């Protein structure tokens, strides 16, 4: 689905379903240099189980126009603008990595618009290594290689995908390679500079689910502890032997956790 948000055309995958204003809505927010397709399985499930699904392409990503947004707060604002554009009063927000920070920030500043949040691969703060930032700033392919190397558990680096016939690291690499110049750097810089995460977490009033990969090397599980402590109404699910690419590495565990959490709302 294409729609206008703040003067630019935005795209959101809806699971091949038309928007139904009588249904509640779940918005899925991807991470750095990714797009809506990282949520294909999970978002499609909810679209076919009584929810409106908006797996968005953030500005400057995938099929959405505009420039990539330079801060977590501006991404959070854009998410609310997107809900406004579609006349959606409240939604559950599900975010991965950078997307998890945007979802957290949106829930803290727009509590009346967000009824649940699910944070996948979160950490607060979310520091990015100098080497990765430098490579991303140069649009050096090495940045993608670093992310791929750190984003899958050691076992999943060699495959064994639950999705038949898809080579996970190859697919992840190709998706990043399709991102626009400077998109990765802008995204990583937004992660790196987001300093308000714990303060935001303390203001969140809606229920929160945290999904953490036990073998995550991009956002280390220990870096989520302060976030967990700061949230009031939270549930933490750690997926064994899983890295940072949770939706690809553990699609069923992610879906099961999301189902339990998101369906509990109604």
């Amino acid at each position: 689905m294409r729609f206008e948000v703040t003067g630019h055309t935005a795209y959101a995958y809806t699971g091949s379903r038309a928007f139904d204003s009588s249904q509640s809505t779940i918005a899925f927010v991807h991470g750095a240099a990714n797009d809506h397709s990282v949520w294909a399985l999970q978002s499609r499930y909810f679209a076919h189980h009584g929810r409106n699904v908006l797996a968005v392409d953030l500005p400057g990503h995938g099929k959405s126009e505009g420039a990539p947004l330079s801060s977590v707060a501006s991404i959070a604002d854009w998410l609310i603008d997107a809900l406004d554009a579609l006349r959606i009063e409240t939604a559950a927000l599900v975010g991965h990595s950078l997307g998890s920070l945007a979802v957290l920030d949106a829930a803290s500043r727009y509590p009346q618009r967000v009824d649940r949040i699910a944070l996948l691969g979160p950490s607060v703060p979310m520091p990015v290594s100098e080497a990765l930032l430098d490579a991303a700033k140069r649009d050096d392919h090495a940045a993608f290689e670093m992310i791929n190397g750190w984003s899958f558990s050691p076992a999943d680096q060699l495959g064994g995908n639950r999705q038949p016939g898809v080579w996970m690291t190859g697919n992840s690499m190709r998706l990043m390679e399709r991102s626009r110049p400077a998109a990765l750097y802008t995204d990583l810089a937004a992660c790196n500079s987001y300093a308000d995460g714990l303060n935001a977490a303390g203001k969140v009033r809606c229920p929160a689910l945290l999904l953490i990969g036990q073998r995550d090397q991009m956002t280390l599980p220990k870096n989520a502890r302060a976030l967990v402590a700061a949230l009031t109404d939270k549930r933490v699910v750690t997926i064994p032997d899983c890295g940072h690419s949770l939706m690809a590495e553990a699609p069923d565990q992610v879906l099961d956790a999301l189902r339990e959490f998101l369906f509990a709302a109604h």
Partner: protein
Amino acid sequence: MTKPKSTHFDTLTLHAGARPDPATGARATPIYQSTSFVFRDSDHAAALFNMERAGHVYSRISNPTCAVLEERISALEGGVGAIAVASGQAALHLAIVTLMGAGSHIVASRSLYGGSHNLLDFTLPRFGIETTFVDPRNLDGWRRAIRPNTRLLFGETLGNPGLEVLDVPRVASLAHEHGLPLLVDSTFTTPSLMRPFEHGADLVYHSATKFLSGHGVVIGGLLVDSGKFDWNEPNKSAGKFPTLTEPYAGFHGMVFAEESTTAAFLLRARREGIRDFGACMAPMTAFQVLQGIETLPLRMQRHVENTRKVVAFLASHRFVESVGYPELPTHPDQALAARLLPDGCGAVFSFAIRGTREQGRRFIESLRIFSHLANVGDAKSLVIHPASTTHFRVATEDLKAAGITEGTIRLSVGLEHADDLIEDLSRALHAAERS
């Protein structure tokens, strides 16, 4: 943090896609000889059918043993995924029918495996898909053949049987200028000698029957997607590939290019092509291809070493008129081969004797180690006379254009000791010369 190291090709040939069986601990990939897989409950069943969960339903669509092979070839080629099918021919057919329907057009190299030529020249026109064949070395010929309804450019990394080296970077670049993908048959080179995606190709397929399985025991095919081609690029590919960019009534209005940014082609190929045409690979076959791939780098190295020795022997033999191997200075593609195939030009090549058709027959029938049969890429050395076998349906003029004469003999050099192969050839050449 230091930059993570990527896994080497040789390691991927052994491990990519596989892990010890979680149920039994079996280290080798099990042969999941089962048509179907039990659902946890009704919701799980519906979710699997509707692509909301990952997993296997029915072995025509996917199978755990085949899935390991699909990941492995994807890893070796540098692609996003693959589909294992019943044969190389099935892979070519699946690629074409996933991309186009009646009224479409293909531009293909004229130096193709006879089976591929049959499909394109005789069979597909009956279904409304036409092909223009071009000299693979003539880039202007490729360009002139492209029409508004062209949907695919297609060639072999090494032409059959003349071993024309496909200039993948230039043909891919031309294809992309016109918003078209390049499909490459990489059977003769395998990812051990060339990875076409690194040179710009968009889709690759293999007859896994040949070097990948490597022992002449199975028929199979593999179709690999690079994930690089944009099926909906404005002013380029947009509008040309409705099978991928428009809602598909056969799967709840799914738009494959929206469902997957990188693997839309594979999704359609699996959800329609394998589902409806049904040319799937058997899990036992997948197991045997996996066994072959485990030794692919070692075998290809030996294949090439032996081939270089046999080529050198034949090139200096008085009864041999010509040898067509791209590493020879007499081959028109020597420079291109040095660039694209630095580790060798495979183990299949043709040569011509200075003799009559009858002397050619005598030569083949005098061989003791080389087996006279219609295959290539076996661990055992093979020989055939293309004009009377693999290319017998091809008109004489087209044969000539493809570099095949009545005296052309094709060898597939195996893994025997090179001295024994040379001795066998020497004896047979002597017998033919005296006859």
